[in-house]
């Protein structure tokens, strides 16, 4: 990854974080390096316990790294306390101050920085307008709905105009409809303010919808960084492929020249290698990934099988097909799905994505 130094907002270099000591020692982050660009919507995506929240807390300053450095806009911040970092956080449960009005919550950061009252008041008005909450300025925060609290939390964190806004699963407490609205709202706020957003979530759909780039994390490591499209269409690792969307992972045999793979049943198809494996193509047994929507039913298809089950979900169906070798395969079918028990031919995509473990 070649990063222009002027474009990088956050640079984490070899960051390790361990908790506890001796037998109870837990490594939450293991030698993690990442570069987050200016003005980008960057998402840390992974299952719970993967270290994504720890990385966020290290950037915010709530935890100090065990090893490694964190640079913010070119300056080492790894050991600064949170109140000395131009970084603000939107917390999972918002953490609004219950003894203050909406307006005072929003003005808190600027007030603590000792800004003049006129400036604080001006910023409060601007932020209230930005999140469309002008009419609720005087309310206590416990009188607000979940979505309104969410907006106040955003306005409070954006008011001091931080260089980076950290968002720790901020939408997880909202219901589905509100969540969709807030996803759009967040994107709008990010483009209007031009602030770098670092967003933590375990919801892959949320990550794909909102992000400029996604870092997929598991077990304290970053497995792959890329645009949503790259992550979805060219997963580099088995975990990434499995975690994001529906996918078929098949055991295949790599041909000697590394250009093709042999699927179960002897069908050969071109291999697509992830960047990390290029130049050092694996040989022998490999895992390959094929998305259900990249295949279709075609009587002349090379791959043959029997329909085992059909799962309808509105815009289409997932058809589970059993191959003669006994393996299962899911094929997405937009229109009329074949009957259960029918013998079908399957048309394969142009290439199969080879996965690293």
């Amino acid at each position, binding site marked *: 990854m070649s990063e222009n130094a002027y474009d990088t907002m956050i640079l984490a270099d070899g960051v390790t974080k361990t908790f506890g000591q001796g037998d109870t020692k837990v490594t939450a982050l293991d030698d993690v390096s990442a570069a987050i660009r200016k003005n980008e919507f960057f998402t840390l995506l992974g299952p719970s316990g993967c270290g994504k929240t720890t990385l966020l807390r290290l950037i915010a300053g709530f935890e100090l790294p065990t090893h490694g450095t964190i640079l913010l806009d070119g300056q080492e911040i790894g050991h600064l306390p949170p109140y000395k970092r131009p970084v603000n956080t939107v917390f999972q449960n918002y953490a609004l101050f219950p003894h203050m009005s909406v307006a005072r919550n929003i003005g808190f950061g600027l007030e*603590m920085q000792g800004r003049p009252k006129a400036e604080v008041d001006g910023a409060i008005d601007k932020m209230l307008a930005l999140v469309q909450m002008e009419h609720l300025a005087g309310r206590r925060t416990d009188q607000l709905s979940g979505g309104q609290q969410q907006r106040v939390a955003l306005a409070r964190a954006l008011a001091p105009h931080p260089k980076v806004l950290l968002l720790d699963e901020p939408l997880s407490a909202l219901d589905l409809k509100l969540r969709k609205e807030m996803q759009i709202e967040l994107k709008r706020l990010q483009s209007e303010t031009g602030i770098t957003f670092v967003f933590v979530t375990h919801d892959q759909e949320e990550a794909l919808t909102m992000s400029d780039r996604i870092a997929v994390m598991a077990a304290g490591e970053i497995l792959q960084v890329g645009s949503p499209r790259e992550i979805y269409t060219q997963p580099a690792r088995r975990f990434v492929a499995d975690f994001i969307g529906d996918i078929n992972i098949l055991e295949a045999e790599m041909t000697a020249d590394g250009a093709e793979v042999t699927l179960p049943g002897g069908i050969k198809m071109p291999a697509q290698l992830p960047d990390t494996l290029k130049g050092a193509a694996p040989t022998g047994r490999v895992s390959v990934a094929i998305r259900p929507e990249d295949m279709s039913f075609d009587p002349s298809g090379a791959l043959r099988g029997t329909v085992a089950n059909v799962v309808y979900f509105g815009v289409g169906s997932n058809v589970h097909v059993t191959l003669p070798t006994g393996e299962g395969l899911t094929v997405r079918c937009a229109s009329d799905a074949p009957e259960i028990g029918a013998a079908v031919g399957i048309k394969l995509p142009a290439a199969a994505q080879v996965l690293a473990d």
Partner: protein
Amino acid sequence: MVALPDTDTQPKRGAEANAVRLAAARKSIDGSARRRRLQLLSPAMITIGIFGLFPLTITLIYSFLSPGVFGGVTWQFSTDAYVQFLFERDIFDDTLTFSNTYLSIYGRSIGLAFGATVGALLIGFPMAYFIASKPPEQRNLWLFLITLPFWTNLLIRTYAILLIIRDEGIINVSLEGLGIIDAPLGMLYTDGAIFLGLIYSYLPFMVLPLYASLEKLDFKLVEAAYDLYATRFQVLRHIIVPMAKPGIVAGCILVFIPGLGAYITPELLGGGKELMIGNLIALQFGGSRNWPFGSAAALILMVVVMLSLIVYVRYSGKENAHG
């Protein structure tokens, strides 16, 4: 319990009849609920009546009677007790001159109790915060240690302080032994000794309510404030203290009121030389044999406390409304 009224012998028909019956049933339930509530409340009411209002009434009546020669009262109306509080009666010509003897005892008592309250708050707040920040399974042990002194009689504990701070006590002996001082520091029988004793006696009353409100404090709020550029001191001032306010108020009331009426502490550590209200009142029922004046002194104390509480509640209520 619920006695449904007899329905008409000629049953009414339709929704109207049902509505009437429902209303009647509801009324009967409401009535019996009210009766039940009174029945359940009665033990508490009777207790308050016998042990609270009745003695208070006796005190009020006694304060307007004349003292008996050997204690007790003679049934003759007199406002002397209240007059005596503010004025000195000349033995020869019965003229009254203003005297601040008793007022100054009240003033000193209020000062000492207030000082002890502030002292207990300053010591108790970090203690309570420390306990609240411990893992839940360790907190009970710390709370147990805080309340441990309660298991010993207050009199014994006060004597223990006396032994520590007296001229031949461990502090003076050690300091003399180390050559830091030549003569014992006269710590006992001073306001300072009473102050120390009051803080020591009532500290748990401060720590427990403070702990109760700090324990509920969401630590995420503290993090959020740090994140929004608040320094440690600003976090304390703008987040932790306001959130702990109910505990601070409860703790201060629980220390100030018993501190104001304290008897054992000033008796032993003040040596009877430095009177507090408690000693003054005790003296009237003992040595001075002036029960009416003792009753009046007790009532004046109660009125002072109640007035200051009312003023406080008014003030803090207003502050909240504008907060």
